[in-house]
């Protein structure tokens, strides 16, 4: 059975989504529990896959039993496995935490909501696990379509922002598809490994270069890298907390993963770093992204909107780390992918708790919160420390790797950007903490959040701390093998 996990981890949530949508018409109350059990199952699958990968190296899986270039095949290495774990953990915690909010926000449509939820997880897991370039596109579209739906159900401005997201997202996905087409026309294959084997003979083909450019641009649109980030803030701000806390941590990180996959598994590191070397330019792009995100975040009144801009700048971290192109920086990049998913989840769970308790997400709204809900604030402050990058939270260590890598490669601008943005994060988060901590004496009837909301939040914090303390093992056994050998 174990060898079937790679297929099951994607198809079980898929099947569950159908069952959920049917039970949405029959017994609405079941939907949540079906989804819950499925997500627990997925966690088991993903961690056992990770375990297999660590113990016995890369896993191959042939769908329909057809050998790779002709059929679709999985090629699961450490990077896939790691992302699978992140996705499943995040989705599970978020599901538990948002149960009540979903019941309140969309009572008749709960069935549809959980269907889309399961579909979204399916899409993300599929993107992460697949080894076929075109299959990735299809799953990308699944994740995006469900994402549009989940975002659009929010406040009344959400629809418009979701429509804009749809335009941008479609352009991005189509660019990716086009890039794959360009590759196909010169290589005649769609399997990532196969393409990467054929490619070395085509290094000086213009088509390959253009294909690379188009793919990258498409993915940058999807991951909201600075000049192409326009859709993100509105979309995430106006969505309901129950959907934004799923999409915000995962969507962009998975896109970063796809970028790494395209860089290293389709186009070889040899090609992107030796042959055409756009590294310096892209790192400068990411530096501007970091600064832009930080500055915009400073100028926000609404806390949720502030976080969306923090996401933009964090994307800058990861893209920069990926394109500095030495081993240390890449370690930082992958590590930060994990951290950022967790931290963002923590932050958005906190926002979810606020909105569920009818506290509006502004600096006035959260006055006196440390007194009213001390546990929630405590957990949030720990997340904040991780955003700022204080040891022993995991945020510090990924930042440390990024800085170290940047220093080795001589990207001092990137170092500066990281440090400045950390300082700005201090300001951002202490503005929140101040607002919550001072003037705490006005009696209001806000109660501490309920257990099912607190437990996931605290689990996130615990994971952040544990990952921080055990990062040596994480890096040694998972992240380091995930980086291609030829990168020093």
């Amino acid at each position, binding site marked *: 059975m174990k060898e079937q996990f790679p297929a099951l981890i994607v198809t079980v949530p898929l099947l569950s989504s159908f069952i959920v949508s049917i039970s949405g018409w029959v017994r609405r109350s079941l939907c949540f529990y079906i989804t819950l059990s499925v997500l627990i199952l997925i966690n088991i699958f993903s961690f056992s896959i990770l375990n297999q990968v660590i113990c016995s190296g890369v896993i191959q899986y042939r769908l329909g039993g057809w050998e790779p270039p002709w059929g679709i095949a999985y090629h699961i290495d450490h990077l896939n496995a790691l992302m699978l774990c992140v996705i499943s953990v995040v989705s599970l915690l978020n599901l538990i935490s948002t149960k009540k909010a979903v019941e309140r926000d969309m009572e008749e449509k709960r069935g549809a909501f959980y269907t889309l939820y399961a579909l979204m997880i399916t899409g993300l897991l599929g993107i992460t696990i697949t080894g076929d370039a075109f299959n990735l596109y299809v799953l990308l579209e699944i994740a995006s379509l469900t994402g549009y739906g989940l975002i659009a159900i929010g406040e009344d401005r959400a629809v418009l922002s979701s429509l804009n997201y749809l335009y941008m997202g479609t352009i991005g996905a189509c660019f990716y598809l086009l890039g794959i087409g360009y590759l196909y026309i010169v290589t005649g294959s769609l399997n990532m490994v196969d393409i990467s084997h054929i490619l070395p003979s085509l290094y000086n083909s213009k088509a390959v270069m253009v294909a690379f450019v188009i793919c990258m641009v498409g993915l940058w649109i999807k991951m909201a890298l600075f000049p192409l980030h326009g859709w993100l803030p509105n979309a995430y701000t106006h969505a309901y907390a129950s959907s934004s806390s799923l999409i915000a941590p995962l969507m962009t990180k998975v896109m970063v993963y796809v970028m790494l996959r395209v860089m290293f598994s389709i186009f070889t590191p040899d090609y992107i770093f030796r042959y055409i070397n756009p590294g310096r330019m892209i790192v400068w792009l990411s530096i501007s992204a970091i600064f832009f995100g930080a500055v915009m975040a400073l100028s926000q009144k609404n806390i949720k909107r502030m976080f969306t801009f923090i996401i933009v700048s964090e994307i800058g971290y990861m893209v920069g780390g990926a394109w500095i192109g030495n081993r240390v920086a890449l370690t930082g990049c992958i590590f930060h992918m994990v951290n950022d998913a967790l931290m963002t989840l923590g932050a958005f769970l906190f926002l979810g708790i606020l909105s569920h308790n009818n506290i509006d997400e502004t600096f006035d709204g959260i006055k006196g919160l440390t007194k009213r809900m001390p546990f929630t604030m405590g957990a949030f402050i720990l997340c904040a*420390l991780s955003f*700022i*990058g*204080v*040891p*022993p939270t995991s945020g510090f*260590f990924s930042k*440390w*790797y990024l*800085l*170290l890598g940047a*220093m*080795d490669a001589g990207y001092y601008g990137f*170092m500066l950007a990281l*440090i400045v943005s*950390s*300082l700005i994060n*201090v300001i951002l988060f*202490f503005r929140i903490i*101040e607002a919550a*901590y*001072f*003037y*705490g*004496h006005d009696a209001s009837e806000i109660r501490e959040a309920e257990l099912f909301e607190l437990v996931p939040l605290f689990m996130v914090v615990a994971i952040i701390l544990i990952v921080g*303390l*055990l*990062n*040596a093992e994480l*890096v040694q056994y998972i992240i380091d093998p995930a980086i291609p050998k030829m990168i020093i």
Partner: protein
Amino acid sequence: MNGIVSIRPLLAILVSLCITPLLASSRNSNIREAWTFFAATLKFLIVVSMLPVILRGKDISFTVVHIMPGLSISLRVDALGMIFAIVSSSLWIITSAYSIGYMRGLKEHSQTRYFCFFALAMSATIGVAFSANLITMYMFYEMLSFATYPLVTHHQDEEARISGRKYLAYIVGGSIGLVLPAMLICYGTVGSLDFVPGGLLPPETTRGMAIVLLLFFLFGFAKVAIMPFHAWLPAAMVAPTPVSALLHAVAVVKVGAFCIIRVITQVLGKEILSLHNLNLLICLIASITILVGSLIALSQDEFKRRLAFSTISQLSYIVLGVALLNPKAFIGASCHIAMHAFGKITLFFCAGNVFVATGIKHISKMRGIGKRMPITMLAFFIGSLSVIGLPPTGGFFSKWYLLLGTINVHSDIFLAVLLISSLLNAAYFLPIVYDAFFCPEEESQFEGGIKEAPLWCLIPTVLCALGSIGLFFFPEIFLKLSKIALNLIGL
């Protein structure tokens, strides 16, 4: 390095960390304070239990977790750390007694939060004292910064908010903006951040890099309040007096000084400094701080602010003493951690007593208070003697060794600096005492009815005063420890 591995340093840190849930959960204030005392005493005992080993010249080390190649969160107890640990843990006991009296006397709000974060801050302090490499030290340093924020801003009013901002801006800004890059550079060049006797960095480090690192560390560890990075300390005086007493006279600022000592002696190292004679640079900055601090202190009328500026100048004694790179001066500096701690905490306690008893914050309103509160002002007198550095107080020894050090290196300037600042110290402390006792009756601003501060406040004050006298007669322990430290570091 002849050392033994033991978990005791970790325990010493965890004691007060683990006590916080109990403190937070305890409904009754008596139980809460009982827990505090328990933790404080336990911590002190653990620290003292390690003393014999240290005195035998060994050291105790314990590695918590490896982070990345050449980098780990690990603890090591050596003589230098021991001095600091003993001072802060012993003073925690006294201070917690004092805080009980103070907080109850003034009926402060949310005392539970206060005691919790106090405990956190203490474990961070001990952590800094016992940390074996830069990254561990950095970790506890940050922990201390964030743990002290709620204490500094305890009153939660506009003033507290502004000074809280200032506090974070200087301290966190310094640590992230300057120390972090400096650590990165060190790690990038050496591949490790451990404290090495005689310096972590290779001797062939270029002058430019050495200067950059030095300045980054010196100003980055803003807790040492070297000018121009000193403004947070007077601002932080909005905190309740016990906080100012323990944290801003002992724990926090001494953490800064301690970090600087570590960096100068065990990261940059003697060779590099003396090679590019950067130590003169440090001495220069330090002596400027000393003199300017004392001068500003003269002009301060608010009691605690005057003490704050005196602290600023006294801290630079330590920096100066270390930067002289001379055995005698080093002994003086490391003793000064202890001596100044006892003296200065006495002074702060007295300020607190006056405030509790009369609600007065300004020196000009304190004429003739000595007749009303004789014990407090007597203690104040002793404390000020110790800070000035006159016998029969412990302060005498540290200053004596510092002076000897300056003479050994034949630097008359710094000798002069020390002497002048001693005069200044006298100039800004003794008038207070004089006015308190010997002002004519008709000028006294006090009618009858003003009593001494409550016992909970008075006893700790007296204890500290006696402590600083006792250190004059029995300074061996600290002298011995600092000699051992000297051998280990090998100046």
